Each structure stands twice: as structure tokens, then as C-alpha cells.
């Protein structure tokens, strides 16, 4: 073989390779030829098809932001496109047909699910979401009782797309509990666990049309949904995961020795209200739970299912009540009262979930992980978890009261002031 032929061959093969590769640049897309989709809303239309809302970043608006002094304020930051189709992909195709640039899904940050969709189309929708290579498992799944389209079209911020704002809202909420950062990875993981229930953040629009965190949606893989409002989600959040920064209003414990455990619960529940029926803030202590954690353990047998719940919380006094000076004794009484309240709230949450047939607490998971044989034995009675007794071991620890030890206008303060100044000094 001559040297010239060797050269010739090398050139020919590189030429062939380059030409064939050039033919292969089917994925070449200019960056300004993209419509970056950041949010997807899925509802069920009246005819049972999917109503898909795509939240797409408006390139014109972002361009006018880049250019100084062109006054691009009138441009909306995103385009919201709605369509109806039999499947998510078909809907995206349909959206694509209306737009001059390629719809780019890879940056999708949130999927807002309407109530109907989880009841009727959950399986096929999740199949598409799990399969789609452009959609990452880190995207957030958000439930809404409104229409998903409305949540995505809510226009509040002038500079950022609705979906990205929703993402920020969820990220903020996730500071309370990681379960509120309901990304696809975790949601699917929980759906496929024995309990088959996932918690998702619930966002609706408020009176002004702004999207706000309404609470939690607990959805079973069969599509049953339990909506838990933020006002009463503490009990549920404590069941679901560790939490940070939740606030709780504990009835102000009496100074001398009434035991509060058990029997005191009814009084505590009513303790927030005065005789006129209005809420008396000065009779409650506001506890800020710095961090809490919960462990649900199986503690029974296949014949006698039983669970043991361990709750540990560390908090601080955010607002005291008038009658109280925070000494060690008062701290322990307050801790007992707080623990009792936590227990009440958790019991209430469990009751609700059981009534709704939603094993949000993961009782079945706890059993499966502890004793797979017992789980199989109990599989014949799928409702066993709704009646199994639960024992609570709740320990609260209050660690500080911020800058003061007692309320400035509280009874204790007035008494000590009287002592030091004399009555005349005050009444003059």
C-alpha cells in the first residue's frame, strides 16, 4: 500500500465521517429559537380530555429587560397557552403548532395538577411524566382545587414567570417541612410504597388572584384526595416528616399544679377563647417549634397490630401569656401542655386520614419495613391500619424565650412593679 493511498484513505474516512455527522445534527437548535417552558398545568376538561396549560417564558419580555431604556415593562414575562388533547404529549404538540419557536420542556419546573386529573387520569399522566426525557424528577408537583390553568395564569410578579414564582413559593414553604417540596421523585416513591399515598403541596388563588399555599393534598395512587388546610396541617406535617419553624398556640397553663395530661385536653382546646367567645390571645403561649421529628414504629403482631409514635420537638416561646413568668417550673408545665396539644393534633390528623381512607401516615410502610411477613398476613384485611391502635410518646422541650423572661404588661410584671415603686407611685 502506498503512502499516498494511506493518506487518501484517511482523508476519505474523515470526510465521510464529517459529512455523515453533518447530516446528523438533527438536534441543532439555536438558543433564540426556543420557547422555554417553565410550568405545566393539567386539568380535566369537560369532555374528559386533558386541558393542558403551558407557561412559557416570553422571549420578547426578557429581551426588552436586557436592553436598557427601552421600557419593556408592558411585556408580560410569560406566555400562557392552553389546549385540550388526549395526552400530555399531544397537548404539547398542539401548543407547538401555535408557536413559532420550539417548545423546550427541559426547564420545566412545576406541574400543577387539578383535582380532577388525579381522580381520573393519574396513571396515564404519570406514565408520560416519568417517561419523558425532558422532564426531570426534580420538578415540583403541585395540587390545586382551582383549575390548574388559573393558578398558572395568575399574574402577580412583573419580572418572573408564574411557574418560577410558584417554584419559589414552594421552596419557601419547604422550610416548614420537606414534604411540602413535593417533587416528582418523592411523590412517585411514596405512591409506589405500600401505603400508596403521597403528600403534595396545595396551592390555590386567594381573593386577589394570587397563588398562595393553602395546605397539603394527600393523594392515594387510586386518586383519593384528602385536602388538609394550612390552619390544621400541623398534626399532619408532624406525622409526615420532620418540621422546622411551625407555630403552635398552647393554652396558658395555670401556675399551681393542675395536671394537664389527658383530661385537660378539652379545656385546652377551649382555652383560646374567653367567656365572650372571642379569642383571648393573652391566655395562650405561642410556641415556635424550632425542629421536630417523628418516628412511626410497628410494635405489634399480625394478630394485634399496634403502632408506636415517637415525637420529639424543640421549641421556643415566641409570645408568653400575661399570667406567667418563665421559670423552670413554668417551662415544664408549658412543655407538658405543648406535648399534650401536639398529641391532640396528631390524633385529630390520624382520625381524618383514617376516615378518608388515606394512609398518609405511612402506617403500612412502617409495618412492611419492620415485618414483611406480618404485612403479607394482614394483606387480606386491607383496612387493618384504620383500626390499629397507636401509642404516642411525645416529648417537647422548650429551650428559650428570646429576649425577655415574662410579658412586659403581664400580672407578674405589675406585681413586682408595685413592690418596687409603692402603690402611690403608680396611682398618682
Amino acid at each position: 500500500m502506498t503512502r499516498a493511498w494511506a493518506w487518501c484513505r484517511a482523508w476519505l474516512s474523515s470526510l465521510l465521517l464529517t459529512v455523515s455527522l453533518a447530516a446528523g445534527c438533527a438536534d441543532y437548535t439555536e438558543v433564540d429559537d426556543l420557547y422555554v417552558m417553565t410550568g405545566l398545568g393539567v386539568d380535566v376538561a369537560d369532555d374528559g380530555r386533558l386541558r393542558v396549560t403551558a407557561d412559557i417564558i416570553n422571549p420578547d419580555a426578557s429581551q426588552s429587560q436586557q436592553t436598557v431604556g427601552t421600557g419593556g415593562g408592558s411585556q408580560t414575562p410569560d406566555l400562557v397557552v392552553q389546549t385540550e388533547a388526549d395526552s400530555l404529549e399531544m397537548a404539547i404538540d398542539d401548543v407547538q403548532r401555535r408557536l413559532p419557536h420550539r417548545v423546550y420542556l427541559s426547564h420545566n419546573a412545576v406541574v400543577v395538577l387539578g383535582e380532577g386529573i388525579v381522580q381520573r387520569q393519574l396513571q396515564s399522566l404519570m406514565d408520560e411524566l416519568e417517561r419523558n426525557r425532558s422532564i426531570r424528577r426534580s420538578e415540583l408537583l403541585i395540587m390545586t382545587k382551582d383549575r390548574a390553568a388559573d393558578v398558572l395564569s395568575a399574574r402577580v410578579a412583573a419580572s418572573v414567570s408564574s411557574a418560577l414564582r410558584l417554584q419559589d413559593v414552594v421552596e419557601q414553604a419547604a422550610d416548614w417541612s420537606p414534604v411540602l417540596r413535593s417533587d416528582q421523585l418523592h411523590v412517585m416513591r411514596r405512591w409506589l410504597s405500600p401505603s400508596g399515598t403521597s403528600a403534595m403541596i396545595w396551592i390555590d388563588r386567594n381573593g386577589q388572584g394570587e397563588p398562595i399555599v393553602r395546605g397539603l393534598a394527600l393523594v392515594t395512587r387510586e386518586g383519593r384526595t384528602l385536602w388538609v388546610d394550612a390552619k390544621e396541617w400541623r398534626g399532619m406535617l408532624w406525622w409526615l416528616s420532620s418540621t422546622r419553624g411551625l407555630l403552635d398556640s398552647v393554652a396558658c397553663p395555670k401556675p399551681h399544679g393542675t395536671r394537664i395530661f389527658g383530661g385537660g385536653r378539652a379545656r385546652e382546646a377551649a382555652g383560646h377563647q374567653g367567656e365572650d367567645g372571642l379569642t383571648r390571645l393573652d391566655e395562650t403561649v405561642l410556641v415556635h417549634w424550632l425542629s421536630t421529628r417523628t418516628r412511626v414504629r410497628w410494635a405489634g403482631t399480625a394478630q394485634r397490630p399496634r403502632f408506636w409514635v415517637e415525637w420529639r420537638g424543640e421549641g421556643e416561646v415566641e409570645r408568653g401569656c400575661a399570667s406567667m413568668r418563665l421559670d423552670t417550673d413554668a417551662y415544664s408545665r408549658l412543655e407538658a401542655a405543648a406535648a399534650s396539644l401536639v398529641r391532640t393534633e396528631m390524633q385529630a390528623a390520624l382520625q381524618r386520614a383514617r376516615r378518608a381512607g388515606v394512609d398518609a401516615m405511612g402506617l403500612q410502610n412502617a409495618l412492611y419495613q419492620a415485618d414483611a411477613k406480618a404485612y403479607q398476613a394482614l394483606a387480606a384485611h386491607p383496612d387493618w391500619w384504620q383500626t390499629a391502635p397507636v401509642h404516642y410518646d411525645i416529648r417537647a422541650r422548650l429551650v428559650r424565650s428570646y429576649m425577655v423572661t415574662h410579658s412586659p404588661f403581664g400580672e407578674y410584671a405589675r406585681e413586682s412593679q408595685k413592690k418596687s415603686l409603692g402603690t402611690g407611685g403608680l396611682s398618682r
Partner: protein
Amino acid sequence: MRRRQGPTPVPQQAERAAAELERRLMPCPDLRQQSLVVAGRTAVIVWLEGLVDEQRLQIGLGAFAAGGREAAQPGWWERLGLGQGRATAESRRGPAPGGRSPLLPMRSVRHMEAAVEAVLAGNAVAFLDGEPFATAWDVEKSPGRTIERAENEPTLQGPQEAFTENLGGNLALLRKRLKTPGFKAEPWEFGERSRTQAALLYIEGMTKPELLDTVRRRLEYVHVDAVVDLNVVREYINDAPFSPFPTTEETERPERVVSSLLQGRVGLLIDGSPNCVMVPVTLPMLLNSPEDYYMRFALALPLRLMRHLMFWSAMLLPSLYVALLTYNQDLMPTPLLVSVAAQHTGIPFPTVIEALAMMVAFETLREAGTRLPRAVGQSVSIVGTLIIGDAAVRAGLVSPGMVIVVAATGVASFTLPALGLVQVTRLLQFLFVGVAALMGLYGVMLLAVATVGHLVSIRSFGIPYMSPLAPTVWSDMKDTVVRAPWWAMRQRPRQFEPLDSRRAKGRPGQRQKRWWAR
């Protein structure tokens, strides 16, 4: 190496001999002749004005004139340059034993060709009536620069001297740093017409003999008419002649040559070139700067890491940007993607064309900056980068992101200490942009793997180019990305297989440990 056909003997009449020499060099206005009478015989001395040191010329003339009675005897003339019958390079090595003045070695020249050569080499050649020899003595003082600061390899700390175009001076710069009899400078001559002198440098007893043989063998293949610069020889002897990567190292700093000789490497100095070639070389070595050795060792690590990173950045940055913008947009954070897309909207060219145009423009400016006189060159660079770049962005011809990326690539390439590597990155970045436009990051990745394959396949005088990284030589890692403190580098690099692997054995009774080690 040179062919000599029918050498002409030196005529016995001095005048005739001088005339013959002049005829051979004519026209030659700078040829000077001086006749004098030595012991009753006519002597003619010939030299080239401007090439010689007048003072030494005078000493030589004085030596002849003082010949006295002795000079009247036949053979005296030849005894002046005893045993040095031919004017070859070897005769330069030491003082001629028969010379009258120990400071002024003389040698005998038998043929006219040799006499001409000697005159051209800066010798004064003397013919004496009745003698079939000429006597030549080296009075060369060729015009040239004095020693200056190292301009092309500047460092903040450390020695600042640089080589000049004078071989002898350059050797002296090395000798003053390396006072060992083991330091050898083997004389070579290249160029059939230029007769350029060269010196092969090594340390006997340290450099691997096989390496020396390889270098000598390759040097024997150098067949050119003139060696105007080191590069002529370098291209003859280097490995992987078709590879863009430099397989030899050049420096203008004598202390670098010394330290490389002490690693067991070989150097080559050539008259007329202010650089020294050092072989073998590895890529990690080319990324080391002399500064690394003059600063605290701990600081060298981040700097070297940065240089390694910058070497790859200088090759890959534009292609990564093109790939990110045209194929792998998902890798960018959403706000960045939106911002980049907004920047790019309205640019009339596809990203790849934009990138190529910017790169060509940048390379043009860089070339212009290098070619122009320094004062003008700097202003061209500034005008080019600031004004033209800004104008292009304002005119909507290129996006600001692209300007940033191409400029950053340029800056990254400026951090590389070896000029050869800079040129490679300039070349390869175009290739990478090409594959990025064809297949995105996937193409870039494959080409990068192929490039690594190419890099590890190259050898420099038998040493793998990527060692000690691949093949891994753990002991040599001390001076690769990390620079170990001097007291920890007690062994010479193993990769060069030096005969004497310990750097210093210490004087008898000298403490071997560190002062703080108990």
C-alpha cells in the same frame, strides 16, 4: 557532514595567499589586510572588520612581531599552532598547546578553504612567506546584544537573565551556574552554508546514555543549508512531526536549562538563537512556569491546577459554549438560559458562525498585536478588543456572551507558559467548535477523548508525553500538579531514568534530615 573536494594548499608566498583569499571572498569591502616583516620574511594578516576584537588582534600581531630569531627558522610558523592542522569546530575546544600566548590560542591552517572559513568565523589569518601553512587565531567579537532581561518568560521572582544570540556567551551563562566538570557542551555544526555552531548540553554521569545517543542520532539527520533559528533543528529532531503539540521545550532562561539538565535531560544551544531546546519534555512540564519554583511551594499547587484547567479551557471553552447554546441548553440554569437567549435574539448569524467569526477576529487581533511594534501592538489589542468588540455587540452582530467567551478563551491561553501550547490551543479550538456544531457535547467529548488518546500516544525522545499522569509515575507527581518543597524532592524525576537519581548526597558528616526533624 560537509563535502570537501580538492582542497587547495596554502601558497608559500604570503601576498599570493592573501590575494587568493581575497579573490574567494570578493566582493568583500570589510576584508582588511596588514603586511609586516617578521624576521625578514613578509607576513600578511587578513581579517574581517567588525567581526574581530581589535585588542586581541593587536596582541596577536605583537606576538608575531616578537618572533625574533626563532621566527627565521622553518617550521616556526606551524609550531605556533601545533597539531591543529584543520580549522574545524573541534579546534575551538581548548587553547592550542603550541600557542605563544596562552590567552590567544593559535592554530595552523593548511588549505585555503579552511583559511576562508577561519576568516569568516572571526579569526585573523596570517600567511608567512615560505610557509605552506597559515596561522589563525580566534579574535572573534561578533556584534550582538548584551545580556538582557527575559522578556518572553517573565517572572516576578527569581533570576532575570536571558540568553543572547551568542553561543559562547550563552555557554558562559550556564557554566557560571553549573560548576561541575560533569557539565558537557558537545560541539556540533549545522548548515552547509551557515556553518552554525551548536552545543549539545548534558551532565555526564547523570543523563541516560541512550537518551544522548538518540539525540545525537537525530542530530545527524539535520541536512540544511542554513540554520537561521533553533526551530530548523527542532523540526528535524522532534517526535510526532505531524502533531500540533510541541515535543520539545524552549527557554531563554539559563537557570531553567540548568535545572532541566539536573533532571537528567539534554539541552541544545545554537549560535544565533537566544533560546535553548530541552528534551525530552512532557505536557505537564510545559504547564510549569519557572515562577513555580521561586515562590512558596504551597502556592504553586493552585496556580498549576489553574494552568491545567486553563489549558483545557483554552481549547474547549468556545466549543462548550456553542454546544450549550445549540444542543445542550438544559445544562444552563433557567435564568441564564433566558438571559443568553435574549442576548442572542436578533443576531443574524447562527451561534457557530458567530463563534467562528469572533474567534477569527480575535486571532487576527492577536496576530496583529504580535507583529506590530510593541507600543503600537498594545494599542491595537486594546482598540481591537474594547472598541471593535463593543461596537460589534452594539451593532447586534455578535452577542455579548460570545465576546466574553472568546475573550476568556484568549485570556486562558495567555496563562500557559509554553508558547507552543498556546499555538496548539489556538488551532484546536476551531476543531472543537466544529464538532460542537455537529454533535454538541457528545461530539466535544468524543474529540476530547481522541485528543487525550493522541496526547498519550506521543513520546518525546522515548518519554511518554503525558507522564507522569499517564502512564502514572507516582514518585514524579511531586513536581507535576503539586510542587513538593525542595527538601522533599530528593530524587530526580524517575521518568528520565537518570544514572544518578539522588539530587544531593551531602558532604560527609552533613546532617541528612530537616533541621526541625528530631
